[in-house]
């Protein structure tokens, strides 16, 4: 039978853990608000650039951009967006599972994979799993600067330009609501052509100032960058939401454990008292 001192110690240690998790829950809740705001602020730009890109796709352009071109694929690159810190439930691991299964699927078609990783968790995971890593961006913080991602995006796009890769996928968590985050693997390159263009072939084209090639290169690069940036800030919001839920569950679990241990503590204490009493009574009657 456990003695009362041991049980008391255990209760104290769980209580201090509970204090930490509940503090982390509150921190995550306040950060979640901020990261959600950042996510919403970034949305108009990504929506508008998406509109422009879909117009460009419809135009009968004098310069067909390589991002639209379907090449015979030999290698694909996965841009994986993860969090820098853990303690956020299954958020990262669910995403990695999807990435691995997609990569295995491509492998069956004879397409190799390489990875460009954002976030400490992704780089740690792919270091242990193995796989060719071409670029890493870590420790971007709660308010990532778009400039910090340009380098990584450039590595991927340059590889595409040099035919090092033929496809690119963007893997990140989509924010549905506070309770739900949806891991997504989305094809970046080749850009999926708009369906309308087939039924209604367009005759018009833009006036380009200065050159079509230069402009479209710049615009499409910016588009890919904006998608990656949007994925990162959305993933941040997901991380904080998932962390809040995970910490809330941990706090609740700690509460349950404490209740059980307190019951055990009272039982043990009562048993000790009863035993002592019966010893005294037994001793007295023996005298």
């Amino acid at each position, binding site marked *: 039978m456990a003695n009362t001192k041991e049980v008391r110690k255990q209760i104290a240690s769980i209580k201090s853990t509970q204090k930490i998790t509940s503090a982390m829950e509150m921190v995550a809740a306040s950060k979640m608000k901020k990261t959600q705001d*950042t996510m919403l*602020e*970034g949305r*108009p*730009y990504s929506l*508008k*650039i998406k*509109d*422009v890109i879909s*117009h*460009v796709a419809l*135009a009968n352009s004098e310069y067909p951009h390589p991002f639209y071109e379907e090449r015979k694929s030999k290698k694909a690159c996965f841009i994986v967006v993860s969090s820098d810190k853990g303690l956020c439930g299954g958020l990262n691991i669910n995403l990695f599972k999807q990435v691995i299964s997609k990569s295995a699927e491509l492998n069956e078609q004879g397409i190799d994979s390489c990875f460009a990783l954002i976030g400490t968790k992704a780089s740690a995971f792919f270091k242990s799993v193995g796989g060719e890593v071409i670029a890493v961006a870590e420790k971007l913080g709660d308010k990532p600067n*778009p400039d910090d991602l340009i380098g990584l995006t450039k590595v991927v796009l340059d590889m595409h330009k040099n035919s090092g890769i033929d496809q690119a996928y963007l893997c990140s968590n989509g924010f549905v609501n506070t309770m739900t985050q949806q891991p997504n693997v989305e094809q970046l390159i080749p850009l999926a052509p708009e369906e309308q263009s087939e039924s209604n072939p367009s005759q*018009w*084209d*833009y*006036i*380009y*100032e*200065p050159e079509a090639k230069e*402009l*479209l290169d*710049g*615009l499409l690069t*910016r588009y890919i960058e*904006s998608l990656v*940036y949007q994925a990162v800030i959305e993933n941040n919001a997901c991380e904080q939401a998932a962390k809040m839920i995970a910490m809330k569950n941990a706090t609740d679990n700690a509460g349950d454990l404490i209740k059980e241990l307190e019951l055990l503590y009272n039982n043990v204490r009562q048993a000790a008292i009863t035993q002592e009493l019966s010893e005294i009574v037994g001793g007295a009657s023996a005298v």
Partner: protein
Amino acid sequence: MSTIKINIVSSSEEIYSGEATMVFATGTLGELGIAPGHTPLLTGLAPGPVRVQNGNEEEAFFCSGGFLEVQPDLVTVLSDTAERAESLDESEAIKAKEIAEKELSNKDTSIDYAKASAQLAEAVARLKTIQKLRKKQ
């Protein structure tokens, strides 16, 4: 009077969305005036003001580069950073210009020359926007 829809967005926020009878912007190849029904156009933006005219009202924004797309009924400005011209602070702009000039003048240090000259161009454009606005008032 016919109008054209205009949206100005930067990577961190939506700056302006509304109707206009005329839009003026600084393209990489020079000043542009866009009236409703303009032919489709795609151009880069140089640092400078974007002015939105609606009847007699006019609003100005500072834009430090980006892209401009024109459809016959829609203008989209994808700005790297844009701010309302009223919020431009002249002293801040002058300070930025001085810093950029200083960085340009000591070339032998490790400072990136291209970056410094881009900063200078931006600071000068910012000042121009402010001065243009001043003149009108």
